[in-house]
């Protein structure tokens, strides 16, 4: 199945892409998606804490909904889902 991932702000530099469509095995969750996206050690360090948890500076929305209000990285994915990934911008 295929999901769309959109990157914004500095995440475009981390993933070197604005948007990708990625093929996943059936019944995947967000953790599997992130594992597929973060192939390099550097990328993993920017997305995950040493403990394996998502860094607080990583915002992920599934179809507009914050994944922390769903099941976090265990949030299940379905074909056609759109995932948005970006950092919280704090300056003003």
């Amino acid at each position, binding site marked *: 199945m295929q999901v769309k991932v*959109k990157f*914004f*702000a*500095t995440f*475009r530099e981390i993933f070197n892409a*604005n948007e990708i469509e990625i093929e996943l095995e059936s019944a995947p969750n967000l953790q599997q998606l992130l594992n597929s996206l973060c192939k390099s050690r550097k990328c993993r360090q920017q997305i995950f804490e040493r403990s394996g948890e998502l860094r*607080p*500076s990583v*915002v992920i*929305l599934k*179809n*507009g*909904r*914050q994944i*922390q*209000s769903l099941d976090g990285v265990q949030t299940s994915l379905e074909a056609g889902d759109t995932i*948005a990934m*970006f*950092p*919280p*911008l*704090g*300056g*003003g």
Partner: protein
Amino acid sequence: MSGILVEDEIRRYERQIRIFGAEGQEKLRRMNPNVELEVISKAIDKDSVDKLASDFDMIVDAMDNFPTRFLLNKTALKKNISLFYGAVHGFYGQATTIIPGKTACLRCIFPKVPPPISFPIIAVTPGIIGCIQATEVIKYALRMGSSLANRLLMWDGLNAKIDEVALERNPRCEDCGRE
């Protein structure tokens, strides 16, 4: 009444087009003598925020940190005041319009206070995001057009691209949740 809340008027950044304080007040008054203008030189904190925002119909976020933004978010929700969020980092910017009870609030998007970091500023980016916020305020006041309600506008100055992300309310949101 609308409020442009700037946390610290003492700081004078190169990105500030308007100069606040008495000088800025006078300049704005000359530009439009029909506008009633009151400058309040007071820090926004948990003790002052309710009183500062009490008479406002709109709050424009011009903060440079998340803790104060979350204070404004809570106050806007409590007092049913629309909040116009805008933030920047280098060439990147974000903006959305938060209408209490109708749209995702700031806490729906950012459930946890992000760790404080020093962020780079390219002086033009706050100008672009500020103009987008101002456009939202004018449309909201005139009840015209479509607002950024439940849409997070993403400005990418490096690639000269504007995108948007659909937002949804979090029913279990700490600040605006209904569950």
